């Protein structure tokens, strides 16, 4: 079943040090609605939840340290990025920046972690980062396209949709993967939507001028 949230984003907190009555969760629920804020204290459960709801507009607040038998925050980050670049990830951790391995920091930066916030900072910083992510989710072409494709029926999504110059045939489901993974073709589709918007607006203006 495809679940689509066309209004507020889903906020998934994967963090074993936070509780349901933590002030941060209270503030997030006030701002985005209780039904849109989910706390997962185990990283595997949080990862499974995110991957099962890729069609949601989602913001993930992610801890780095979990129990030894649980995937680390870096592992969760990697697994999400293997599937999509359209989910915003905010790293919220007890670690200071200098305690994070250099290669992990580079990975976060190169793969669009939205923010890295020490848990000792004011949770206001987290709220600001979430607000920024929510705005970008509302306005990014990739997210809008993702929402549009996710709304199509399974029959439509699984039927051949377009064949490119390389002879590769895509269904809408395939195109969604290209957008989520931000491949060259996925980015080209986003650019094409912007060019289409410019075309439509320009021709609308010409009609008005006439």
């Amino acid at each position, binding site marked *: 079943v495809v679940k689509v949230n066309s209004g507020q984003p889903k906020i998934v907190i994967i963090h074993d040090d936070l509780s349901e009555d933590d002030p941060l969760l209270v503030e997030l629920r006030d701002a985005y609605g209780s039904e849109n804020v989910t706390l997962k204290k185990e990283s595997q459960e949080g990862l499974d939840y995110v991957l099962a709801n890729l069609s949601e507009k989602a913001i993930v607040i992610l801890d780095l340290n979990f129990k030894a038998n649980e995937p680390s925050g870096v592992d969760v980050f990697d697994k999400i990025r293997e599937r999509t670049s359209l989910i915003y990830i905010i790293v919220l951790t007890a670690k200071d920046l200098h305690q994070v391995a250099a290669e992990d920091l580079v990975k976060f930066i190169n793969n669009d972690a939205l923010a890295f916030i020490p848990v000792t900072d004011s949770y206001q910083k987290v709220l600001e980062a979430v607000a920024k992510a929510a705005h970008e989710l509302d306005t990014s072409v990739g997210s809008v396209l993702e929402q549009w494709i996710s709304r199509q029926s399974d029959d439509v999504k699984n039927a051949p*949709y377009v*064949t490119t*110059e390389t002879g590769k045939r895509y269904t809408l489901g395939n195109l969604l993967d290209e957008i989520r993974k931000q491949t060259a073709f996925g980015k080209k589709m986003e650019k094409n939507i912007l060019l289409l918007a410019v075309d439509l607006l320009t021709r609308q203006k010409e009609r008005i001028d006439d």
Partner: protein
Amino acid sequence: MISVNIAFDNRDAELGEFFRQCKDDLITFLNDNDAGDEYDVHEMHSGLCNMAYLDNRMPLINANNFLFIAYSHGEDNCLLAGGTAYIVSNHYSNVHLFTNSFFYSVACFTGARLGGHLINSGSHTFIGYRDSYQVLDRYMAVAIECANLGIKMFFTGRNVEEAFRLMKQLYTQKVDRLIALGDPLGASFLRENRDGLVQLGRQDLTAADFEV
């Protein structure tokens, strides 16, 4: 009588069916609009889309004006069938074979360089795409209609300039139609095809100029 030569790579694994349907659509149009023996149509399926065949075929017709229509994959400098170039403008160039032609190409990228080389080698006019060309499987009838409109309008008496303008206009109408149907993604692919269209060479020619 007008010499109409149609190359189509029907054996292409992914787009062969599209290329064949484009060819069939044009043949049907010509048959429906043929008042007598107006058109001398010569079809070149995948097996004939090669340089050796064209070396033999084209000198038989290129002393006079003729039309050459290609439905296949393309790159900047060539048209391809089965992954092998059959019309090419590099050091093995055979573009000189198409002198006196109206060259109409439904293929990617050929408007970027091959079209200019054809014009410089004596083709009268060229219509094709300078960028990638996407085939909308979901709207195959629309894809074929847009692909063929320019050449069809030429056969109905419009000059090259008018036929090209009408072709772009049809693309725009279909863009608006897909928007109205709620499919901005399909519309964006059609817009890309439209804006990749190029016309090179003479614009004043009509079908009457190709009667022999």
